[in-house]
């Protein structure tokens, strides 16, 4: 027996107890209902996301008899693996946990099961408890429910509250503040090991999840009139909004942060920046909700209670869509600005959600649904979101409301308030940025955008070329998929 497993035991044992109680109280699954049913669920590799599924599968098996196999692939292969498996009729995968924005590519050709009826009949799911944004955005498509949310995702900025206090810097409000704070803190020793640490750590690796970071920065420059304005395309012409002064300003911020980052920032995946931040080597980072819970994990964290979380910073000037120029914020251009700063929190990714293969056997579909429901029910979910290793972030109202959950998990009350406050503020923002959900969105973002950004970061091309490349690439994809179809799809996602 060693320290880790002891610690894990200490954390998990009470949780397991609660979980057991939850089962007894909250579930109506008949014992042995799915005896002999085997469900292959694909997701990306653990421990995040896969870990809670793998951990709870045996419980579920004991409860219902269903055998849950968690099949994991690298993140970059997940979209394609699921798509090809379902499109080719192989149907090895009965259900999958993935990004809800991909749903459109699975739902439109009819690969995914409509879960509306099941959700309606499922009391234990407590659907009303799920924050409206996730209920609408992550679960539904064209009015019907196809996915069950297991995770809530927002990008936020985390900073080292102790370092900032020592330096007398306030939490950044604009991206210029962010860069200035990074510059001010860069080179300090922040974890006491005698080596200088970094001002800002942003994941910029290619073929990973870096493209969300640039969108997080660009959001505040591109969108000021509320969620339905969107940041990707002009809502009338489907012209990409990537070749203008606002996007250029965002790219400038993006490249400026590199100077205050680790030397190999260009090769860091979001996991690497997370471990850098939690091991106390960074003053600032952009990330999803994960850092909040990872920072309190004694197994990995050296920054317990030293982390501040805020909504994404914004900008004092925004894009004028008519001219493509940056214009200063005023009451008209930035109706949602606070202190003259236009902030646009980015619901990047939208939260891992479970969907079910429409071509699976009925019994398998039922079992898969029951399992997802089981995972999402407050009894399970409210613990999982407080454990860093799960990768699950809060998405239920009860999770924001109940501080005791977080304190029990090891967070100080202040930190919990701070953390949940940042998420809730993002969630409540009328100027929230929605992720791209049109067909082939993966090609727009993970290929065209990601390629251009990574080449820019590597110094292969300059800013103008990068912007041109993204614009051309997106226009090409629009042409290939039909501009009108894409425009209609894009407008639909924005509620227009």
């Amino acid at each position, binding site marked *: 027996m060693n320290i880790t497993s002891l610690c894990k035991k200490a954390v998990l044992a009470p949780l397991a107890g609660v979980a057991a109680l939850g089962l007894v109280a909250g579930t109506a699954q008949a014992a042995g209902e799915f005896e002999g049913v085997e469900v292959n669920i694909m997701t990306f590799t653990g421990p995040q996301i896969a870990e809670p599924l793998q951990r709870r599968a045996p419980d579920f098996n004991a409860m219902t008899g269903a055998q849950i196999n968690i099949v994991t692939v690298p993140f*970059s*292969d997940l*979209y*394609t693996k699921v*798509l090809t498996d379902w*499109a*080719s*009729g192989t149907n090895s995968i009965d259900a999958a946990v993935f990004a809800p924005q991909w749903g459109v*590519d699975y739902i*439109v*050709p*009819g690969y995914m099961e409509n879960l509306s009826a099941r959700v309606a009949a499922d009391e234990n799911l407590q659907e009303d408890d799920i924050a409206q944004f996730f209920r609408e955005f992550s679960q539904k498509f064209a009015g019907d429910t196809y996915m069950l949310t297991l995770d809530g995702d927002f990008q936020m900025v985390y900073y080292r509250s102790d370092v900032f206090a020592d330096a007398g810097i306030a939490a950044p409000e604009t991206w210029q503040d962010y860069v200035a704070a990074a510059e001010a803190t860069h080179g300090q020793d922040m974890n006491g090991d005698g*080596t200088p640490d970094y001002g800002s750590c942003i994941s910029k*690796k*290619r*073929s*990973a999840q870096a493209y969300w970071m640039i969108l997080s920065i660009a959001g505040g420059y591109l969108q000021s009139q509320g969620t339905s304005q969107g940041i990707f395309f002009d809502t009338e012409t489907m012209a990409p909004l990537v070749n203008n002064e606002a996007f250029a300003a965002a790219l400038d911020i993006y490249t400026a942060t590199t100077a205050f980052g*680790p*030397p*190999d*920032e*260009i*090769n860091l995946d979001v996991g690497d920046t997370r471990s*850098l931040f939690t091991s106390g*080597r960074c003053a600032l980072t952009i990330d999803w909700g994960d850092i909040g819970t990872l920072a309190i994990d004694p197994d990995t964290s050296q920054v317990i209670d030293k982390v501040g979380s805020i909504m994404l910073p914004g900008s004092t000037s925004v894009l004028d869509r008519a001219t493509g120029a940056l214009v200063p914020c005023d009451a008209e251009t930035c109706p949602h600005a606070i202190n003259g700063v236009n902030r646009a929190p980015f619901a990047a990714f939208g939260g891992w959600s479970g969907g079910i293969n429409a071509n699976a056997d009925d019994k398998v579909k039922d079992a898969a649904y029951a399992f997802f429901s089981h995972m999402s029910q407050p009894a399970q979910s409210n613990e999982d979101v407080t454990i860093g290793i799960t990768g699950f972030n809060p998405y239920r109202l009860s999770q924001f409301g109940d501080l005791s959950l977080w304190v029990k998990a090891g967070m100080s009350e202040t930190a919990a308030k701070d953390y949940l406050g940042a998420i809730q503020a993002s969630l409540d923002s009328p100027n929230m940025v929605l992720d791209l959900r049109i067909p*082939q969105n*993966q*090609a727009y973002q*993970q*290929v065209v955008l990601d*390629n251009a950004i*990574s*080449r820019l*970061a*590597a*110094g*292969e*091309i300059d800013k103008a070329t990068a912007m041109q490349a993204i614009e*051309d*690439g997106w226009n*090409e994809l629009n042409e*290939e998929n039909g501009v009108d179809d894409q425009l209609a799809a894009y407008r639909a996602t924005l509620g227009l």
Partner: protein
Amino acid sequence: MAYLEARDRRDRVAEWVDRNAGKVFILPAVLTLLAFSLFPLLVSAYLTLTKLKFAAGGFTLRYVEWLNFKKLIFGSQQYHLLGTFDVFGIVDWLILGAIFALLLFFFVRYLIRPGTTVVGVVGRSVAFVVAGALALLLVATLGGGFPGSLVVTLFYVFAGVSVQFALALGLAVLCAQNIYGRNLFRVVFFLPIMVTPVGIAYMFRMLADTHKGPFADIWTWLGLADFSWAADPWTARIVVLIGDTWQWTPFMFIVLLAAIENQPRDQLEAARIDGAGGWQIFRDITWPAIAPVAATIVLIRLIEAYKIIDLPNVLTSGGPGIATESLTLHAFVAWRTQDLGGSAAVGYMLLFVATVTCLSFFNFAGRRTRRTEL
């Protein structure tokens, strides 16, 4: 004679097999290869001319003629496959001129030599045109432009194979000496080949980590704490190459060692009595004896080296930018984004370049080394 009559059915089957042994023995292999290479090759050729679209209940292939190739060679993906070109300066022209003149010289020399054949002319024409085109590409992208996946692959293949061959030969010569623990060295040196390439890639990512890897302190001591190999195109490529070398040197080593140990003893002794020293023995006796083996093993490595994917994919995801992306990774990335036609087109470019280089090497080095055989 009883044995000629009364042959039962089993005998007749056995006799049929015996009489048709030629077909029976080779058919399984031929059928397997037809199904898994010739047939896919043709389907793949068709795929390069199409674009895949997912539709309700499956997918459709839309015929787009040469669009996929056009994109790669002239269009929006040119930077990816061929690279970004530099404007030619005088030096570039001089280098190119020299290369072309050399190619032309060899070609003309072949034409005026006796024994020229049609196949030989066609083969050499293709080889020289490809060599010329690649030279053009190298000069255009390595001077001031930026190389695409094709040039990067060529770098992996040629730099990798040369370094690995040199190392393997050196080690094999050392190991062939009369030393203790020879078997230990031999076994241990063979280990890397047993590790799954993906695993090797991750292992080298661990080792190459300048923060928490084993060489972090050395890295800092060298004053490189603020420098990351992953952010610079050439250091990133070299790290990929180091991983590749670790993985593949053993294979060449083990074969070359066996070849050295297998060389005729009497020749060695004769040379020694004639007064040859270590280096002379190697140059005059050992090298000619192992040259055919060396040519073959280099050919195999050439073939396999073109398929490099795991290392750049895991170490850098092809980054920084596209600096470490090999052709196979390029095709794989295209597949991952549902661009089946583009993926197949990249694959075909790879097949073309690999075939031409391997065949040229086979014809050039293969024949040459064989002459020394008794």
